[in-house]
């Protein structure tokens, strides 16, 4: 059977799957992971032609004979993509191949115009690297070293849209549409060596690795790394073995793991699923599985046996690449600071305590806070907004902080409005609501919602008078020195002013009138 027939297999979402609790699974098995991350580069043009790479364009509007694989067309390597690949390799402490080639990976699929993917096989541009992944712990940070097998270049495929079925998947669809705009967009595939010894921290390590990779790629400026748009996609290979000294078990490859939260959940799920299966005396099939973000489960996809044969051979339409030593050295000399050094430096600059720093990193807010500070906000204020209100909103929406539609410059502007006395913290929250709802910039939200603090002393004074008159008992308490009772009057005034008043000034006015 070929790959296409297998894809036609029904979903198995409705079949009950035995799961072992995560805790129990870890008492009985040792998980080993391998992570494959595909990164779409943000080059202006595609890997092998001059077509634009803009996301979301009209289907099949960014295509040419080369990326459509028309007869006779030939590829030309995008040098910027090679440069990005080398920089990624260097940032992951890889060796850079002095000489390497592209190869053809042959298989039939309608969204692949040539029915082969131009990729790299046994001669990747970068190999043998490592990176130190920062884990947050109860009292600060821990570091796990992840070995990098390789980072290689390849081209993306087109995108199929299956029409007519209930699930949007190929099964049950009555026809499919293909958009080739994505075909030929440069991809870098980064493959780890097996990550052993992570134990119960496996999901955390996987998530932290991907998060750190994302930050690193952002720092390099080589990709938009928007997981929700598919510009960073993660495949999780996972196997279990009875103990750390046992040979490696059979692995599954879970695809479609396209958010940081899902990386964590997919690892956890596969550990539970495989553990239940193995404990029942079953065996794990080497296969591709699909992650379903909505249900938090994986289902069986293609069976991936050794029989799958891509018939790789060197791409005869391209000449070998031989990046010069001088070029590689120059790229190395301008690499961004490695994550650990950066974290230490920023902690010192911002004056954060260890736990504050841990929470900032843990929330995925390091770069956001850094950018907010760069836009003129104090470190404490920047941290406060990202880690409290905005973190809560992200959590509610089930997205990463960076995926919120609030930018560091929005946060900086809101804080500036607070500092200028134009709004208070409570109103600031409403401003963020507005920005998140797509109502515009913070200033636009303030103007449209009429959210400015009332600084008209006359209006405020009248409101205070009304509150005193309406609450004679409270007023008496305050006159008798029970200043703590002022809170009730402040609340009443703020309510009347619909929050648009400076609470501090209200308090001053109340105390002055009742002293």
């Amino acid at each position, binding site marked *: 059977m070929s790959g*296409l027939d297998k894809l*036609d297999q029904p979903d198995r979402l409705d079949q009950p799957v035995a799961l072992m609790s995560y805790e129990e699974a870890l008492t009985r098995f040792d998980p080993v992971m391998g992570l494959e991350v595909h990164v779409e580069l943000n080059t202006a043009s595609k890997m092998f032609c001059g077509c634009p790479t803009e996301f979301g364009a009209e289907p099949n509007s960014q295509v040419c004979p080369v990326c459509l694989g028309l*007869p006779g067309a*030939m590829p*030309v390597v995008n040098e910027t993509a090679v440069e990005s690949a080398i920089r990624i390799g260097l940032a992951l402490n890889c060796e850079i191949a002095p000489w390497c080639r592209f190869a*053809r990976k042959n298989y039939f699929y309608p969204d692949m115009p040539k029915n082969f993917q131009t990729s790299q096989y046994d001669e990747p541009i970068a190999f043998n690297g490592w990176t130190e992944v920062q884990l947050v712990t109860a009292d600060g940070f821990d570091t796990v070293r992840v070995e990098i097998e390789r980072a290689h270049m390849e081209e993306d495929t087109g995108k199929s849209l299956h029409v007519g079925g209930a699930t949007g998947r190929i099964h049950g669809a009555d026809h499919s549409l293909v958009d080739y705009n994505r075909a030929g967009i440069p991809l870098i595939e980064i493959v780890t060596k097996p990550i052993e010894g992570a134990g119960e921290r496996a999901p955390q390590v996987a998530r932290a690795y991907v998060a750190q990779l994302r930050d690193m790629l952002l720092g390099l400026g080589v990709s938009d790394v928007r997981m929700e748009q598919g510009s960073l996609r993660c495949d999780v290979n996972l196997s279990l073995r009875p103990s750390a000294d046992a040979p490696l078990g059979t692995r599954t490859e879970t695809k479609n793991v396209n958010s940081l939260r899902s990386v964590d959940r997919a690892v956890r799920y596969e550990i539970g699923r495989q553990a239940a299966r193995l404990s029942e005396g079953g065996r794990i099939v080497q296969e591709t599985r699909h992650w379903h973000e909505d249900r938090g489960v994986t289902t069986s996809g293609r069976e991936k046996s050794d029989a799958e044969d891509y018939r790789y*051979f060197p791409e005869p*339409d391209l*000449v070998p690449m031989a990046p010069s030593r001088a070029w590689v050295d120059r790229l190395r000399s301008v690499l961004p600071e490695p994550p650990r050094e950066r974290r230490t430096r920023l902690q010192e600059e911002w004056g954060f305590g260890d736990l504050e720093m841990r929470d900032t990193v843990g929330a995925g807010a390091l770069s956001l806070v850094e950018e907010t500070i760069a836009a003129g906000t104090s470190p404490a204020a920047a941290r406060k907004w990202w880690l409290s209100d905005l973190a809560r909103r992200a959590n509610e929406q089930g997205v990463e902080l960076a995926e919120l539609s609030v930018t560091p410059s929005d946060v900086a502007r809101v804080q500036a409005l607070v500092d200028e006395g134009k709004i208070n913290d409570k109103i600031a929250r409403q401003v963020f609501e507005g920005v998140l709802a797509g109502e515009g910039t913070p200033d636009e939200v303030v103007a449209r919602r009429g959210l400015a603090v009332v600084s008209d002393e006359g209006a405020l004074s009248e409101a205070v008078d009304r509150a005193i008159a309406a609450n004679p008992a409270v007023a008496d308490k305050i006159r008798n020195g029970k200043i703590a009772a002022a809170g009730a009057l402040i609340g009443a005034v703020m309510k009347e002013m619909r929050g648009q008043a400076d609470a501090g000034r209200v308090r001053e006015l109340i105390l002055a009138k009742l002293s």
Partner: protein
Amino acid sequence: MSNLTRRTAAELADLLAAGETTSVEITSAHLDRITAVDAQVHAFLHVDTEGALAAAGAADQRRAAGSVSSTLDGVPIAVKDILVTKGLPTTCGSRILQGWVPPYDATVVSRLKAAGLPILGKTNMDEFAMGSSTEHSAYGPTHNPWDLDRIPGGSGGGSAAAVAAFEAPMAIGTDTGGSIRQPGAVTGTVGVKPTFGGVSRYGLVALANSLDQAGPVTRTILDAALLHEVVGGHDPLDSTSIDQRLPSLVDAARQGSSGDMSGVRIGVVKELGGEGYQTGVGERFEESVALLVGAGAEVVEVSCPHFVHALAAYYLILPSEASSNLAKFDAMRYGLRVLPEGVEAPSAEEVMRATRDAGFGDEVKRRIILGTYALSSGYYDAYYGQAQKVRTLISRDFEAAFGQVDVLVSPTAPTTAFRIGEKVDDPVSMYLNDIATIPANLAGVPGLSVPNGLAAEDGLPTGFQVLAPAMADDRLYRVGSALESLLVQQWGGPLLAQAPSLVSEGASA
């Protein structure tokens, strides 16, 4: 001017320059000739009367305005149907591309257009250039103008036959293992396979990417040089194209035509002759070598011991690359689409299977199977890997030989044109036609075939092959031109003057 089709391209260019004729007259004469004889020859798959005449008219206007685009501006040409032409059907001789009209021009085609050459049409070929007889065209065979019952060689039999039958003064062919040179030999025309990377492959529908090369098909060496200079040179769209200028080929052809070969060292390749070569082919070859010696050349025998493995290596590398190249013909985006019979709602894969089954001929299927097998895991090293090693050894043989001599020579093809149908069921015997031409493709060196007479036993043309080091294409033209002028002197005119006229006396052509 009734004899315009008998003129060489260089002569036509001179007549145009002298104002003695127009491109429209020349182009019309060739279109008329196609009308008169192509029903018998079947060199063309598509004739673009309107486009050719429009281009000719534009050429005449340029000339009237004093702004010619090139020496060959206004001289018409035929193009093998494996090079994509914007707005003109391109089938590669295959059913699977029936009806496909490419949206872009191959670089070779855009250079022809930029140089002002009207394109008469697209010429017949073995399907996807797989074959040595043009019998594997899905649209029927091309016939050899010397004897219509015989093959014109292949895969570019259409281009060679068109030129030999005076339907076009020049044509573009492509040569993967001899598809320009072998048809040249069996039709009495000149064919040149340039250095690999010398002519852009962009828009040449790939058979075997590492072997394919487009080049000139003409009646004289000088015409080939003129055409080679129009289409050759670096192309940024082809990463394997060489960014380096060749010495002047036209100068080399003119220099050679003096017939003086003194100081030129020529190596006769021991492995490319003798057993398996037809008697008449051997005789004409010996005679040509003697002529060159008489003209002052120093001739030695050279051994290239690994050439005996060339055919085997070629029939692993070519099908491997071809099996991958041909995967794109899947009915999803262009060309033929066949729905499987008796299947209600066929899946994409079922449509692919039905289309490929109906759209590809037997020889194509044979090579896809061979290539798929050779690339399979577990066999790759034994087949594709070994073949690449042989390829390296053949390149070394060439290097060693070119350390001793300036050019190598051999018969172009082991036999004269065989009868249509004679070898069609015997692939290996068909493959052996390219035994002398394949080594040049494996090593990427340039080669040329020049007509060197008729075999006594059958009265059919034979070809003389000249091989030179990479980027020394000029040597081909110098030696080829010298031999051509010595032979033409001996014959008292071009060899093709002895070919049948194809049109009965009194018929208008």
